[in-house]
C-alpha cells in the first residue's frame, strides 16, 4: 500500500507540514526525509511564487488522485483547492518536471525506507553522490563516473572505480592457478602426442631459435646437412620457407634437398633450385603448387644426376611435360613419388613405364585421374620392389591390380593399396597370396570390401619368405578375430608394426590371444576404435611383449590407466 502512487486525502495541516519537510505516513507517524528536506529547502530558496505554485500543485495532484474517494474531508479539500486552483492552474514545463521529480523522490524514499537493508540500496542514479556523478576513487584516487554498477566499499568508505572494483571482487589466485593448470595439462598432452617427453637437445633448441629468426639470417654456415634439414623442416612447418629464405638451403655441392612446404615458393624460385644445385641426386618437393611446365622441363634438362624424386602437388604441370621429364631422366631414376595431380594421363604413364625401367620404388598417391588403364601399364616395371597406389580418384578395380601382381608381384617387398576402395577379396586370394612371396610391408588401409573369411584364408595359405614386418589393416571394418589369428600364425614372429585401427569386431578373446602370442619384435600396435580393448589387456601387453614401444588407443573408452612400460597414446584423459 505504501508503494502505490495513489495518495489518500490529505488535510491542509499535512500540506503545511510537508512544505516544511515533515512527512506523515498513513499511520500518522512522522518519518524522516533527508532528500525531501534538501529539495524542499531548495524550493524554499526559490521564488515564493514557485513555492505557492508547488504547494498548490501538490494539492492539485492530490485532489486529482483523491477524486475517487467519497469522503467528507474531500469536500473541505475541494473548497480550499478550488480557491487555490483558480490562481495556479497554469504550470510551466519546469514546474511540471520538478513536480515529477518530487514525486519520484517521495516514491523512491518510501521504497528506500522499506528496503534500506536490502541489496538494491544505492543502485539508482538517485542516491549517487555529487552532481554529474563524477567522483574520486578512494583507493586509487582516479576520477571516474559513478554508474549503477560501481561498488560501494565499506573499507574505503566510498565508491570504487571499475579497476578497483575488479581487483576487489576477483579472487586473484584462483583463475590464474586454474589457467596455469589447464595450460600445463594441454602442454603435457601435446608433448605425449609429439613424443617429446624429455628435455630437448641443445641442437633442437638452437634450431628452434634459428627458425624463429630465419628472416634475419644471411647464411647458415657450416652446420652439417642433418641440421640444415632439421631447420628446413621447422621453418616449413612455420610456413617461413619463402623466396628469400630458400637460398639459405641451396649450396652448390649439395646432393640432397628436401623442401617440406614449397607453397610459398614461386615458379622462378623452383627453377633456381636447378641452377644453384645442379648435382642433386635426391630432390623432394612437397606442396610445390606453383611449379609450371617450364620448371619441370628445366629439371629434366639440368638435373643430370637425379635418382630420387618426390614431387608432391605440382598440379599445374601438364602431361606432356611429365612425358618429357621421363624421357630425359627416366633411365637414371630409381625412386619416384608423384602425388596430388590429375594430369598424369595414360600417355604420361606409358612414357614412365617405357623410360624408367630401372625404377625400384614407385608411389602414386592421390592421382585423381588414375584408373584401371594406368594401373595395368605399371606391370611393365620389371625391377619394382615397392609399389604404392594410394587414394586413386577414379576406379581402380581388381582386374588391373591382379594383372600387375601377377607380373611383378614376386619381386615386391612393399605393397600399398591404401584407399583403393573398390578392391575386393579377389586381390588377396588371387593376387597377393599366390604372387607376393617376398612381401615385408603390406598396407591395406581402407579396403572396406574385404571379408573376414577370405582374408583369414589368404593369410593362412600364404607362403611368405620371411614374414611381414608391417601390416596395416586400418578401417577394413569387417575383419575380426579369425583374421587376427591367421595374421599371427603367418607373421607373428616378424611383425614390428601392426595396425588394427577401426576393426571393431575384434573381441577380447582375440586381443588376449594377441598378447598371449608374445610377438617378439612388435614395437608399434594400433588398437584404436576396438571396443573391447581395456586396461586388463594393456597390462597383459606390458608383461608379455617387452619390445612394445607405442600403443595407440584412440576411441577405446575402457582404457583409463596410463602405462609405465610403453607410450600409450589416445587415452581419454579424465
Amino acid at each position, binding site marked *: 500500500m505504501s508503494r502505490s502512487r495513489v495518495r489518500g486525502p490529505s488535510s491542509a495541516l499535512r500540506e503545511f507540514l510537508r512544505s516544511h519537510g515533515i512527512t506523515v505516513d498513513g499511520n500518522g507517524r512522522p518519518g524522516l526525509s533527508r532528500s525531501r528536506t534538501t529539495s524542499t529547502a531548495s524550493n524554499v530558496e526559490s521564488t515564493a511564487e514557485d513555492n505557492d505554485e508547488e504547494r498548490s500543485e501538490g494539492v492539485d495532484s492530490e485532489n486529482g488522485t483523491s477524486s475517487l474517494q467519497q469522503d467528507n474531508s474531500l469536500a473541505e479539500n475541494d473548497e480550499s483547492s478550488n480557491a487555490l486552483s483558480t490562481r495556479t492552474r497554469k504550470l510551466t514545463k519546469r514546474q511540471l518536471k520538478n513536480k515529477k521529480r518530487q514525486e519520484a523522490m517521495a516514491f523512491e524514499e518510501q521504497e528506500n525506507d522499506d528496503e534500506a537493508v536490502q541489496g538494491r540500496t544505492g543502485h539508482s542514479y538517485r542516491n549517487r553522490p555529487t552532481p554529474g556523478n563524477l567522483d574520486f576513487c578512494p583507493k586509487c584516487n582516479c576520477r571516474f563516473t559513478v554508474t549503477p554498477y560501481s561498488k560501494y566499499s565499506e573499507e574505503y568508505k566510498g565508491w570504487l572505480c571499475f579497476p578497483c572494483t575488479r581487483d576487489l571482487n576477483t579472487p586473484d589466485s584462483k583463475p590464474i592457478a586454474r589457467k596455469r593448470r589447464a595450460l*600445463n595439462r594441454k602442454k*603435457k598432452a601435446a*608433448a605425449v602426442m609429439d613424443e617429446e*617427453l*624429455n*628435455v630437448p*637437445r*641443445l*641442437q633442437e*633448441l*638452437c*634450431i628452434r*631459435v*634459428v627458425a*624463429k*629468426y630465419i628472416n*634475419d*639470417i644471411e647464411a*647458415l*654456415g*657450416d*652446420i*652439417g646437412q*642433418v*641440421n640444415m634439414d632439421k631447420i628446413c623442416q621447422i621453418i616449413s612447418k612455420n610456413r617461413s620457407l619463402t623466396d628469400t629464405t630458400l637460398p639459405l638451403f641451396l649450396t652448390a655441392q649439395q646432393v640432397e634437398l628436401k623442401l617440406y612446404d614449397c607453397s610459398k615458393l614461386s615458379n622462378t624460385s623452383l627453377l633456381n633450385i636447378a641452377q644453384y644445385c645442379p648435382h642433386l641426386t635426391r630432390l623432394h618437393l612437397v606442396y610445390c603448387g606453383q611449379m609450371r611446365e617450364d620448371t619441370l622441363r628445366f629439371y629434366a634438362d639440368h638435373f643430370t644426376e637425379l635418382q630420387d624424386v618426390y614431387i608432391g602437388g605440382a598440379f599445374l604441370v601438364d602431361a606432356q611435360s611429365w612425358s618429357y621429364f621421363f624421357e630425359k631422366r627416366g633411365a637414371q631414376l630409381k625412386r619416384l613419388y608423384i602425388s596430388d595431380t590429375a594430369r598424369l594421363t595414360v600417355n604420361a604413364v606409358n612414357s614412365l613405364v617405357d623410360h624408367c625401367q630401372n625404377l625400384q620404388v614407385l608411389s602414386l598417391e592421390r592421382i585423381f585421374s588414375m584408373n584401371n588403364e594406368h594401373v595395368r601399364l605399371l606391370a611393365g616395371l620389371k625391377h619394382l620392389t615397392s609399389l604404392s597406389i594410394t587414394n586413386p580418384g577414379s576406379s581402380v578395380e581388381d582386374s588391373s591390380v591382379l594383372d600387375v601382381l601377377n607380373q611383378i608381384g614376386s619381386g615386391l617387398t612393399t605393397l600399398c593399396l591404401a584407399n583403393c576402395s573398390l578392391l575386393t577379396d579377389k586381390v588377396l586370394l588371387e593376387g597377393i597370396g599366390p604372387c607376393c612371396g617376398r612381401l615385408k610391408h603390406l598396407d591395406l588401409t581402407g579396403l572396406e570390401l574385404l571379408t573376414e573369411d577370405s582374408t583369414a584364408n589368404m593369410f593362412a595359405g600364404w607362403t611368405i619368405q620371411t614374414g611381414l614386418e608391417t601390416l596395416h589393416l586400418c578401417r577394413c571394418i569387417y575383419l575380426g578375430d579369425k583374421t587376427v589369428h591367421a595374421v599371427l600364425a603367418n607373421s607373428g614372429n616378424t611383425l614390428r608394426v601392426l595396425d588394427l585401427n577401426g576393426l571393431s569386431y575384434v573381441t577380447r578373446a582375440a586381443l588376449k590371444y594377441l598378447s598371449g602370442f608374445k610377438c617378439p619384435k612388435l614395437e608399434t600396435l594400433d588398437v584404436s576404435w576396438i571396443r573391447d580393448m581395456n586396461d586388463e589387456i594393456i597390462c597383459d601387453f606390458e608383461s608379455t611383449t617387452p619390445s612394445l614401444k607405442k600403443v595407440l588407443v584412440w576411441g577405446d573408452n575402457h582404457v583409463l590407466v596410463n602405462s609405465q612400460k610403453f607410450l600409450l597414446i589416445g587415452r581419454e584423459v579424465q
Partner: protein
Amino acid sequence: MSTEFVKLVSCDGFEYILKKEIACVSGTIKTMLEDAKFAEAQNNECHFPEIRSDLLEKVCDYMHYNFTYKNQTDVPDFDIPPEMVLELLVASAYLDV
C-alpha cells in the same frame, strides 16, 4: 683432481670444471672420457681448440639444465640469445649435445 670432476678447456684458454656425470650429457665428451687409452680420460681434461669460451660456457649451462630437468614435466625454457645461435648450433653438433 678427483675423478668426479672434469675440466673443459676452450680455444682462448678458459677452463670450465664440471662434475663428470654432467659433462657426459655430451656424447662426444662421454666418448672422450670413457676409453682409458685416451689422454683425456687419463688427465680428466678435454681440450676444444675450435670452440670459443662463450659458446663452451653456454654448453655447460645447457648440460646443467639438462641434468637438472631430466624426466620432469614442468620444465622452464632454456634461453639462447640469437647472436650466438648459429655458432652454438655448430658447437652442439660437434659435441653431440
